[in-house]
C-alpha cells in the first residue's frame, strides 16, 4: 500500500473540518463558542449547577457569588459586605460559607432553579443568622 491515498484522505478530512460552518445564531443567551461556564447562572437548575460545581468548584463558587451580589443589591441597595456587617459578632460568613449554602441547597434540591438557592441564602442573611456549621 502506498502512502499517497492516505495523504489525499487526510487532506480531504482536513478540508471538511475547515469547511464546517460556525455555530448559527441562537435565540437564547449563550456564551461564545469555546468559552467556559454559562451566560446566566440563575436560569440553570440545581442539578446542572452541582455537575458544573464538581468539575470546576472554585470557578462556579466565584460565578454564583458574583451573581448573587446583584440580587442582594437589587433587594437592599447595598452589597453583601454591608449586609454581613449588620450581623453582630463573628458571624462566620465568608466566601466558603456563603457559596456553601448554594452547594448544599442544590445538592438537596436538584430540580429547582439556582435562583431558589439565592432566595434561601437571602432569607438566612436577612434574618441575621450566623453561617451554618
Amino acid at each position, binding site marked *: *500500500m502506498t*502512502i499517497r491515498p*492516505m495523504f489525499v*484522505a*487526510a487532506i*480531504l*478530512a*482536513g478540508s*471538511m*473540518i475547515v*469547511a*464546517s*460552518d*460556525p*455555530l*448559527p445564531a441562537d435565540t437564547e443567551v449563550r*456564551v*461564545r*463558542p*469555546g*468559552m*467556559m*461556564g*454559562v451566560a446566566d447562572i440563575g436560569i*440553570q*437548575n440545581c*442539578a*446542572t449547577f452541582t*455537575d*458544573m460545581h464538581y*468539575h*470546576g*468548584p*472554585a*470557578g*462556579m*463558587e*466565584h*460565578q454564583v457569588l458574583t451573581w448573587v451580589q446583584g440580587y442582594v443589591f437589587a433587594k437592599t441597595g447595598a452589597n453583601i459586605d454591608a449586609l454581613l456587617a449588620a450581623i453582630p459578632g463573628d458571624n462566620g460568613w465568608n466566601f466558603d460559607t456563603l457559596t456553601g449554602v448554594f452547594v448544599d441547597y442544590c445538592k438537596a434540591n436538584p430540580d429547582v432553579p439556582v435562583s431558589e438557592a439565592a432566595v434561601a441564602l437571602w432569607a438566612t442573611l436577612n434574618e441575621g443568622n450566623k453561617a451554618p456549621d
Partner: protein
Amino acid sequence: MSTTPTAADQPNNAGSKLWRAPFVGIATLVAMLLSIGLAHAVMRAIEEALGHDLTYVAQLFLGAGAIVWLWYGVKSKSENYATWTGFFTGAIIWMTWVELFFMYYGRKNFGMMPRMDGSQVTSEPEYLIMTATTGILMFMLAFYIFDKDTRCNMFVWIQKALKLNEGLGQSTKKASDRNYAIITFMEYIYVTWFCYAWNLLVFDPTFVGYGEDAFPAELASVFVSIIWGGYCFSRLMKYRRTSTAVRYGIPVANILWISVEIVSGWGIMTEIWLHPAEYWPELLVLTAAFAVLSALIYFAPKKQSEISR
C-alpha cells in the same frame, strides 16, 4: 518511536508458534488499547477515593515515584525492561504531573469553569488548558521532524518527503547508543498529548460548532483515525520483536483511541473506564487481562539485543 524491523533484527523464536507475526502485533495492540482505558479508570478511581484536594498532593509523589522508576529504566542494559519502564512511567507522568497538574490549576487555583453545551458538561477545565498547549505541541513536532536522530517511521517519512536527508546527514547514534527508556517515555507522553490535542480541537465548538454542527468534523476525525491507525496496525502485525512492537503499538493504539472517544461522545458506547465505582467488576477483569497479556509479552522469547546492550 519505532522503526520497521529487519530480518537481522528478528528474535530467535522460530520454535514458538505464538510469538511470531501477526500475533506479537495483535497482542501488543490489545494491551496498549487496554492500557489507555485502564489509565482513565485509575485516574478516576484515585480522584474518587482520595477526593480532589488530596489527589493534587498525592499526584506530586506518584509522579516523583515514576521518575525514580524511570531512572532505573535508563540505567538498565535491557531494551525490554527499558521499553516497558518508559511505557509505564510515561503513563504515570501523563496522569499525574500533566493531567492532575492541569486539573489543580484549572479547577482550584485559577477557578475555571467547565465548558457547557446546554446543561451538559463537555470539557473540564484541565482540558481547556490542555487545548491551549497545542502551540507548544507543534513546535516540539518541528523538533522531532528536524532532528536527524528521530527514528519514528512517520518522521523519517516526512524527512524524506521534505528532502531533508542530505541536510540532516546520517544519524550519529547506533541502536546500542539509544536509551529506550527515555525514548519510550517521551514517545508515550508526546503521542498521548498529540492525540488529546486532536480530540480536543474536534470537540471545540469555536471551530466545529455544537451538536450536529460538529458532526462532519467528528466523522472526518473517525475516518482519519481508522485509516491511519489501521494502516499502522497493518505494519505492526509484521513485527516479531516485542520491544519494538510495544514502542510502535503506543501510537497505533492512541490513534485508534481517537475514534473510541468520538464514538463514546455519540452515545454509541458507554465509557466504563470513567465510572470505576460503578463498573468495578468489569474493570477488574480488564485489569487482570492487561496484566497477564503484558507479562506474556514481557517474558516472550527475546533476541539477545533486547535483553542486553
